[in-house]
């Protein structure tokens, strides 16, 4: 663990930045937190609204067990304390996107208490520094609807599709000291959420957004006054928010001003934050326990079920890849950085082990190398991701098996892969139909070698005169003559014999 050296250079010296994040993560669930309505993104406005979501008279909330389960599993993945007794509170305020006139949240007794996340400053650098960021709490709450201001010249419209959707609010300690640390924290949190499957982490669609708390101080001084920049919706913007807001605070303080505790907005076009409302205008939310809901009491069996359903988490997986499978630290880090990559890799490896009748450890390295260089290279080129990869792990494993058993050479495998990308055909079929099988037929190779040596008498003489580097030329020519299908080992041996 290392201390950040990120500093803002002010006129009066160096300033340290203190950052805490409140992340709102939409819980992956087909139904809303307290109603049976659907949660599909991008549906027609007001098409996913139940009587409860619209807060019709006499409607009552009933907790959705799946949302509670996901919150508990997430808490467990954050090594956090799970509170067996928690309670829902009402946060009262008026706004057109809030049909009940209150948001059901958890202020006094959140479902998850303190936890932590270990972040690596550079996920792809195994020697990069790590830092532990404290989690203060995780609680469950309802999302609000959405106002649409562009539908009518003088009026606003309300879309309640999002009203009542379940969110987890994950509150960090003010443990981050730089934009990079905040970025690393967000990325790691998103990775964990995706591993657990409790949130898709999709910041573009708004299923994950962050409120960014920033303050500055001279190193060693007590905490300064913080501002909270609301609803920042990408890792890049969070980092930019911290950078420009910290700079603004330094400028204000050094200009003789004072930082006001307030809510701000980030403007990505101008790369600046703007005041939204100050503490004096802050709402009095009049929190009190929601009398429509009983306290949540979690039973042992439920907790045990949550724990059993947790997948292997990124840190543990990375360690296993390195120590158990013998992968390089770099490969282990890249393969575990996204849940989807690890899932793909493990499917590839399992299928490879099955076809080749080997252990996973024996096929791990070849699988990792192929995935990270060949497959990722191709996906990059095609502008695709693993989710919509034209090649499945099963097909990839078949390809690697053909290389491993000597049916095709590594060079030919690249050619086969290109055809797979185009046609989606199975590798054995491609090799068969296009006659790409590697040959160890010594007669054919011998004939080719003889012809090449005969055609290149001058080079043979040079070689024999001591220019041994020319051996590679003969190999290349032979392989070319054999259209790449000759077994390289056989070519080597035959050439050596022929050249004396």
């Amino acid at each position, binding site marked *: 663990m290392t201390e950040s050296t990120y500093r803002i250079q002010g006129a009066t010296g160096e300033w340290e930045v203190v950052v805490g994040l409140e992340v709102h993560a939409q819980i992956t669930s087909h139904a809303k937190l307290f109603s049976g309505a659907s949660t599909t993104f991008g549906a027609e406005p007001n098409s996913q609204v139940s009587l409860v979501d619209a*807060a019709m008279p*006499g409607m009552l909330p009933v907790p959705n067990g799946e949302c509670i389960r996901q919150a508990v599993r997430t808490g467990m993945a954050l090594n956090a304390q799970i509170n067996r007794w928690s309670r829902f509170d009402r946060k009262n305020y008026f706004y057109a996107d809030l049909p009940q006139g209150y948001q059901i949240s958890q202020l006094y007794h959140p479902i998850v208490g303190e936890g932590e996340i270990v972040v690596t400053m550079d996920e792809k650098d195994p020697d990069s520094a790590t830092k532990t960021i404290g989690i203060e709490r995780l609680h469950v709450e309802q999302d609000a609807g959405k106002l649409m201001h562009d539908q009518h010249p003088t009026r606003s419209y*309300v879309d309640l599709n999002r009203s009542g959707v379940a969110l987890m609010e994950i509150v960090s300690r003010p443990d981050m000291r730089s934009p990079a640390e905040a970025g690393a924290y967000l990325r790691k949190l998103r990775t964990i959420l995706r591993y657990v499957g409790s949130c898709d982490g999709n910041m573009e669609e708004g299923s994950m957004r962050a409120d960014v708390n920033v303050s500055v101080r001279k190193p060693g001084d007590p905490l300064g006054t913080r501002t909270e920049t609301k609803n920042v919706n990408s890792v890049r913007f969070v980092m930019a928010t911290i950078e420009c807001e910290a700079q603004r605070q330094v400028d204000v303080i050094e200009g003789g001003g004072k930082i006001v505790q307030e809510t701000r907005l980030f403007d990505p076009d101008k790369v600046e934050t703007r005041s939204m409302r100050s503490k004096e205008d802050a709402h009095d939310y009049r929190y*009190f326990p929601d*009398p429509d809901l009983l306290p949540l009491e979690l039973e042992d069996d439920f907790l045990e079920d949550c724990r059993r359903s947790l997948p292997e988490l990124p840190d543990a997986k990375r360690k296993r890849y390195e120590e158990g499978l013998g992968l390089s630290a770099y490969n282990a880090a890249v393969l575990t950085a996204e849940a989807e990559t690890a899932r793909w890799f493990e499917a590839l490896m399992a299928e490879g082990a099955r076809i080749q009748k080997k252990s996973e450890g024996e096929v791990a390295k070849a699988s990792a190398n192929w995935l990270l260089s060949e497959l990722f290279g191709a996906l990059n080129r095609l502008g695709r991701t693993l989710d919509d990869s034209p090649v499945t792990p099963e097909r990839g494993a078949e390809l690697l098996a053909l290389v491993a058993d000597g049916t095709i050479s590594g060079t030919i495998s690249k050619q086969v892969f290109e055809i797979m990308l185009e046609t989606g055909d199975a590798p054995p079929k491609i090799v068969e139909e296009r006659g790409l099988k590697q040959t160890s037929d010594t007669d054919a190779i011998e004939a080719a070698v003889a012809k090449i040596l005969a055609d290149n008498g001058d080079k043979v003489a040079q070689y024999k005169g001591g220019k041994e580097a020319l051996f590679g030329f003969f190999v290349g020519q032979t392989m070319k003559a054999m259209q790449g299908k000759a077994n390289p080992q056989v070519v080597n041996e035959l050439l050596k014999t022929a050249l004396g």
Partner: protein
Amino acid sequence: MMTNLTDLTVAEIRAGFRAGEFSAREVASAFSANVASAKALNAFIVETPDHALAAADAADAARASGDLKPLSGVPIGMKDLFCTQGVQSTAASHMLEGFVPTYESTVSQKLWDAGAGMLGKLNLDQFAMGSSNETSYFGNVISPWRRGGGDNAPLAPGGSSGGSAAAISARLCPAATGTDTGGSIRQPAAFTGISGIKPTYGRCSRWGIVAFASSLDQAGPMARTVRDNAILLEAMAGFDAKDATSLDLPVPKWEAALSSDLRGKKVGIPREYRVDGMPAEIDALWEQGIAFLKDAGAEIVEVSLPHTQYALPTYYIIAPAEASSNLARYDGVRYGLRDLPDGAGLQDMYAATRAAGFGPEVKRRIMIGTYVLSAGFYDAYYTQAQKVRTLIARDFERAWESCDVLLAPTAPSAAFALGEKQADPLAMYLNDVFTVPASLAGLPAMSVPGGLDSSGLPLGLQIIGKPLDEQGVLNAALAIEERAGFTARPERWW
């Protein structure tokens, strides 16, 4: 001699209808006619004779095919706090005037499923806030009762279920639904010489009932007899997955287990309910009730509920606090009244809509509730009230160690004249002094007529029971009913 159908109780209608003495259509028509001719009482906000007739025709058809339901042939009144599909549901407010739900409350649906029909939506105090029915936007209900001796001052039917109480006592319907948050079933029942029971909190689903104070609101029946209450309650109660506070328990067969034999039962008399300034007539009524229960075989014991004096202030913190939040949804955005002045923004629309849509008492409670929940006052009021509420519940738990039910007056007086207490909200709130403790503790409690005061107005006795012991409450009430021989009824003037 032709029976006057509108004088029959639910049990009598059920029996006569089944025996073929009359048709369900005749019953529904007779009550509908009474409803139509009693506009002076202002008991109904909406009359729905077609609903009652349709249920009656279904009942008549069912009788022909031998497929009768528990309430086949019985028309009832529905307090206009219950949302009814396709029928305006207002909570007696301007805010919801013209609001026609697309859904049916769980309790009303259960009643229709049991074969009952609806004569109309009954007037009430606006959003169930009041003890006299004077806060209704649609004008107050007038009690069918009048004081003797030529005093024709119009009297309050009690509240908030005043329309239900007045309609039953005036024979406009044999039974009706009520809701009770701090006494809204029991006090109007007492004022109008009928019976009504608030079951244990959680027995009846709150889904589809316009919320006043969620932790206190309970639906219950009102009718002229204890038996009728048992019949209605069986149809109304039961677990509802749509209400997280609903109790997942089977519904007992209360009617079948009715018994006025109280031998072996102990009846507690709460010492602290003898409040200063209680009229002698109320005291005498209470003594009479004790004598009735002794006669039924019960042993009388004195008990103490030491935190009783704090119940009223506690109630008037918790109920407004919850109401201030529950009523926030009436904002003019999605349904109900919208007052949008020219050029107004969102905040202006809220202010205008809520200023126009809520009556003074509702506004008063929203303001009290907002105040007690606000930063800096929350602990002093709301947190403290919750603690006292726990102590009040504990008082009752201790009392159950020495008795099975409690007997007390329902209200500190007989019905008062309309307008008499309107200027003084505190005097009005005092009406709930005997009913709010059981509400705060979530206990079943019932009012049953005990007698008349010197001016000929009904007085009610209240039985409070252990959690889930509606049977004990009904049985003790039955013992009183049998002995009180209450046959008085308002003389028709409307």
